[in-house]
């Protein structure tokens, strides 16, 4: 690979080696793309198949004709209310993502830009928090939520994301080489307040990093099942993924077709959010461009 990479550049006039290499790269990419898309295709296709069809052959690449039947089953069950679920999921995921992205950037900014005594200790502390195994800690978290009476509210799923150690870490790592302190200093000379400098100058520069992290947070918050399942027990506050599991509640008769349809409906909003934010992944607003 390394040799080929060298070839690319040596043959500026694009010799055969270059085209062979490009063909190879394309092949790899197409293969990986197929591997990435197939599961979605299977999921969507299964949403159009009847339960016996799925039970007979779990995987098919050709759609069937039972899409409407599956919609009917979802409606009959009554527990899957796509609108309510979508609204709840959207509130939680948007809230958690916005808070996490904004405050993590702010915290990272505090670490990168300012010199303060407890800075190193604080960073070490953040790293330590990140390393705590999550599962068992949830026991204490449930207890707290139940004791404080925050069950069936969105707060315990939104507010804790203000302290998102992994994202602070990412923002710090991203800022360190890329963020020039000169910008802050020139802002100061212009008489800008520190908070203003952060909001109006630092945040725009951090856009690509924020977009990337926003995608990750939104996806994981949207798909989160374990915690919401225990905290949100009433029908009108349930999220979309919980509603999908509700389709599986009839233990003697599982309607796989409707479950796949539910999964498809759940993943659609994610697609939209992802493709909206993905322009930052595709184009990438280079940091340096802001400098001038």
């Amino acid at each position, binding site marked *: 690979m390394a040799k080929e990479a060298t070839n690319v550049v040596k043959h500026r006039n694009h010799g055969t080696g270059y085209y062979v290499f490009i063909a190879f790269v394309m092949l790899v990419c197409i293969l990986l793309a197929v591997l990435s898309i197939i599961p979605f295709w299977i999921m969507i296709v299964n949403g159009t198949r009847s*339960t*016996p069809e799925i*039970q*007979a*052959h*779990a995987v098919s690449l050709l759609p069937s004709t039972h899409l409407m039947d599956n919609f009917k089953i979802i409606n009959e*069950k*009554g*527990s899957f209310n796509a609108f309510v679920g979508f609204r709840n999921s959207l509130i939680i995921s948007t809230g958690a993502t916005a808070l996490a992205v904004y405050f993590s950037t702010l915290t990272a900014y505090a670490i990168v830009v300012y010199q303060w005594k*407890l800075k190193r200790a604080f960073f070490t502390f953040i790293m330590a928090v990140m390393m705590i195994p999550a599962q068992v800690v949830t026991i204490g978290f*449930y*207890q*707290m939520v*139940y*004791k*404080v*009476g925050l*069950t*069936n509210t969105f707060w315990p799923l939104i507010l804790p994301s203000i302290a998102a150690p992994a994202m602070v870490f990412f923002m710090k790592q991203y800022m360190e080489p890329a963020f020039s302190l000169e910008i802050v200093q020139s802002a100061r000379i212009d008489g800008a307040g520190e908070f203003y400098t952060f909001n109006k100058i630092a945040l725009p520069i951090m856009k690509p990093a924020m977009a990337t992290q926003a995608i990750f947070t939104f996806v994981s918050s949207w798909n989160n*099942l*374990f915690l919401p*399942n*225990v905290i949100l*027990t*009433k*029908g009108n506050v349930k999220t979309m993924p919980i509603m999908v*599991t*509700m389709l*599986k*509640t*009839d*233990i*003697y*008769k599982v309607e796989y077709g409707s479950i796949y349809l539910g999964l498809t409906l759940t993943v659609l909003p994610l697609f939209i959010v992802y493709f909206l934010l993905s322009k930052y992944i595709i184009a990438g607003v280079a940091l340096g461009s802001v400098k001038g």
Partner: protein
Amino acid sequence: MKRLVATALCAIMAIGTLAGCGSDNAAGGAASSGAEAPKDDPSVKTINLWSFTDEIPGMVKKYKELNPDFDYEVVETIIATTDGAYQPALDAALQGGGADAPDMYAAEAAFVLKYSQGDASGFAATYKELGIDVDAKIKEADIAKYSVEIGTRPSDGEVVALGYQATGGAFIYRRSIAKDVWGTDDPATIKEKIGGGSNSWDTFWTAAEELKAKGYAIVSGDGDIWHAFENSSDQGWIVDDKLVIDPKREAFIDASKKLKDNGWHHDTKDWTDGWFADMKKDGGVFGFFGPAWLINYTIGANCGTEEEGNSSYGDWAVCESPIGFFWGGTWILANKDSKVKGAVGKIIEWITLDTSETGLQYMWANGTLNGEGGTKDTVASGTVMAKSNGELEFLGGQNMFDVFVPANQFANGKNLTQYDESINSAWRDQVRAYTGGEKDRDTAIADFKQAVADQFTSITVE
């Protein structure tokens, strides 16, 4: 910084104390219960219902429909058992108490013992506390013995849970295959052929060999016979805090190996593609072990379609299993701290003990809960079963209740423990590893013991 930490700590502690006080009050308020006729708090007009399916909420809706003067609002909380989410949430809610705490809750066969006899049985109200004359009613309704055994709390011998279904199992076989091999599909004859009710597997193996000679498998996978092995044992997995491998359960590992080595089954796992496929016309599998619900929901849904020309509809019949067993079922419990025990008691009595034609069980058995033509199922009350009709076209017109009603009496509710769900799956894993050639028999059993020892520090494993 330090001050901030201190303030926050104080706040957290204060919250903790407050919550503590709250739950103390709740417990104090309910301590007066225990009388025959419960006094409901008239200010409370809601019933919190926790369930893992929409089955019981549906029943409660029907109850409210039939009793318009029942003026309680029922708040449903439905959490799927998928990924083990129901129990942690229910446990937290029972422990947490307060206004959102469940007044009535459902438990499935796999974990009901935890709530009726085990660690969480302390939260349950006795049926007597709910104002139900439970002993007389059980007799009158002739409730299946195992259902009562499971619902009886050992610490005081009181009934705290009952089910509405009866899930006694039988052998559900293909008529056409029976004719091909033995020249008849008559349930009485087939019962003899497979050793139905003989309490032994010897005849069953003979039948397996005869079926194999004609190219059929007697069952689809080893999971099919497991429930019968499990239920036939004299002792449960745990006796006096010690792990016991009852010889009759240990025999399952050899039976499973026998099935595999002799090619008597298709080596499928229950609830997977291959298993479902074996229910079709050309599935080549003689039969399945299961209760009535397996016919209704599983075999019925997977028997193939006419269009494909691969339907086994109407080609089925039931006969007695070599060894009696039950599989699945839902039990209903009430919270001892509920403020509306009288109201909850009325619903529970209607579901579990009412034998009239407007009682739940009659409608459930005859498939009339949501209008005529619904799914027929076996119910816990023998009295109701006696006046219900279990004829099914799916079974070629056979009245399935003729077989399932006695089957309910064979089922054993005494050899179960609250940890069976975990222990059973560890056992089935190891048996599969052994029959699949992954390890030898001794290693499989040793690994099983290790698995149990790891997970249950209170159980002694030798």
